[in-house]
């Protein structure tokens, strides 16, 4: 059984690597944007008094690129492949073998976690080597935010896969959610620049809490309990709803 799961995960990993769009949006785009804009736009590398003397690349930009990768995985890559597997009867076909279709779901989750770890590590390490972005002062605090945020986004992905009737709907719903959620995270309008009400709303969204948690831990601060609680709440709610609503066929 463990042999079968290992094999399943290995095949799923190869299939992921054969999807150029998934690899591009989850890994190449965030890392590429950080390095390309970080090296070419001079203002990004100047100490910014509004950020307490930090440079824009140090915490906000790096945090947003880590977030972009994980949001792409949760809202597009994971639900997209699960819905296609259901639509094509792959999950149903598996249920006639000694392997449970849940194993495929677990393999998919594992791959998305591994890809988010790889993308985040590349962002941090290349950002550090090329742009001099400081590594998180407290790796444990950063890891806690990263784990909670990744769980939250993947749980939302599972919920999307659970309720979407077909692949076209899941892709549409994923993109429709992605832009407001990235906006609320501060992708285009940094959270400190948001009007107070918007900032308050952002605090309670999964991406707002995740983005701020990443910025705090990358900037050498402690994550705010509110944001950790918000993330845990979303992960739990989306995860439970997905478990209740998920259909294998």
């Amino acid at each position: 059984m463990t042999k079968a799961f290992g094999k399943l995960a290995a095949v799923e990993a190869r299939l992921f690597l054969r999807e150029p769009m998934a690899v591009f949006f989850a890994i190449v785009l965030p890392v590429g944007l950080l390095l390309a804009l970080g090296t070419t736009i001079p203002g990004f590398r100047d100490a910014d008094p509004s950020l307490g003397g930090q440079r824009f690349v140090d915490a906000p930009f790096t945090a947003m690129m880590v977030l972009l990768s994980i949001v792409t995985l949760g809202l597009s890559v994971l639900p997209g492949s699960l819905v296609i597997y259901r639509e094509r009867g792959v999950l149903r076909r598996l249920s006639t073998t000694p392997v449970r279709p849940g194993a495929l779901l677990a393999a998919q989750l594992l791959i998305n976690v591994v890809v988010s770890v790889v993308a985040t590590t590349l962002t941090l390490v290349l950002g550090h080597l090329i742009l001099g972005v400081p590594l998180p002062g407290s790796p444990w605090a950063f890891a806690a935010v990263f784990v909670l945020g990744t769980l939250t986004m993947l749980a939302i992905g599972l919920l999307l896969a659970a309720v979407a009737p077909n692949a076209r709907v899941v892709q549409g719903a994923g993109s429709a959610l992605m832009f407001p959620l990235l906006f609320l995270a501060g992708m285009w309008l940094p959270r400190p620049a948001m009007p107070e009400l918007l900032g308050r709303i952002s605090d309670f969204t999964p991406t707002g809490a995740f983005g701020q948690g990443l910025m705090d831990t990358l900037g050498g601060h402690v994550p705010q309990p509110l944001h950790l609680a918000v993330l845990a709440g979303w992960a739990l709610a989306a995860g439970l709803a997905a478990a209740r609503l998920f259909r294998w066929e």
Partner: protein
Amino acid sequence: MAIITVNHLRKTYGTRVAVEDVSFSVEEGEVFGIVGRNGAGKTTTVECVAGLRTPTAGTVTVDADLKEQVGVQLQECSLPDKIRVGEALALYASFYSRPAGWRALAEEAGLDLRAPFGKLSGGQRQRLSVALALVGSPRVAILDELTTGLDPRARRETWDQVVRIRERGVTVLLVTHFMEEVERLCDRVAVVSRGRVRAVDTPAGLVARAGGEQRLVFHTDDPVDGLRALPEVASVTTSGSEVTVTGTGDLLSAVAAVLPPSRTRGLRMERTTLDDAFLVLTAESLAGTQEES
């Protein structure tokens, strides 16, 4: 000893009755067909046998481990486009405790191990699907609408694959609506119509049940009334110069003795085919259900 026994199976979805009352049993080593029109309840029946659906009433007994020893090829089940033939077979082989040699299966099915699923033709996909059903070395293989949508050549190649399965001693439960497929492959068939079994017999037995009649059609200018007296002849009908004679036994010789073939033109002989038998058997059932209601 029967390896599959289905006893008064009934399956409803809300108020819709998919399977009314189906019973049959399949002996070890035979190719057993379930034949019927679309919507007759064939797929629901085999899905209950495969353990994918729970019967509303009745029982299904399979004398084999459903997951380990029953290989399934389902209608409308496919694989990710980017998976390669070899990867899919190796993956499915890893699920079973006693897998078959998957390379040999691929070779036998004429499949290129490196070809991605998305690039396979309809026939290749079907043959891969059958190979996947066999990769766990099952005792029973359930094949649903194996050749629907395939061209005649691909259909023949898939049939050859089924013949080889049978030679290995695997019991095959085959769902189809092609009579030619039944004639070629099945030892016995259950004819299903409107969720009920109308007949279970060998293909030849079904033809015999439907009358097993022969029909001679020819043109002649001679009088044909003398033919009616022959014991082999059941009926004679004329339409202009065309004559149709139906009957049994050695009809052709009997007719030729009275009416020399040199006096006839365009003589042809037709037999009741399995197609005819199927139409007769299901038409009776339709009339039957109308009387009941």
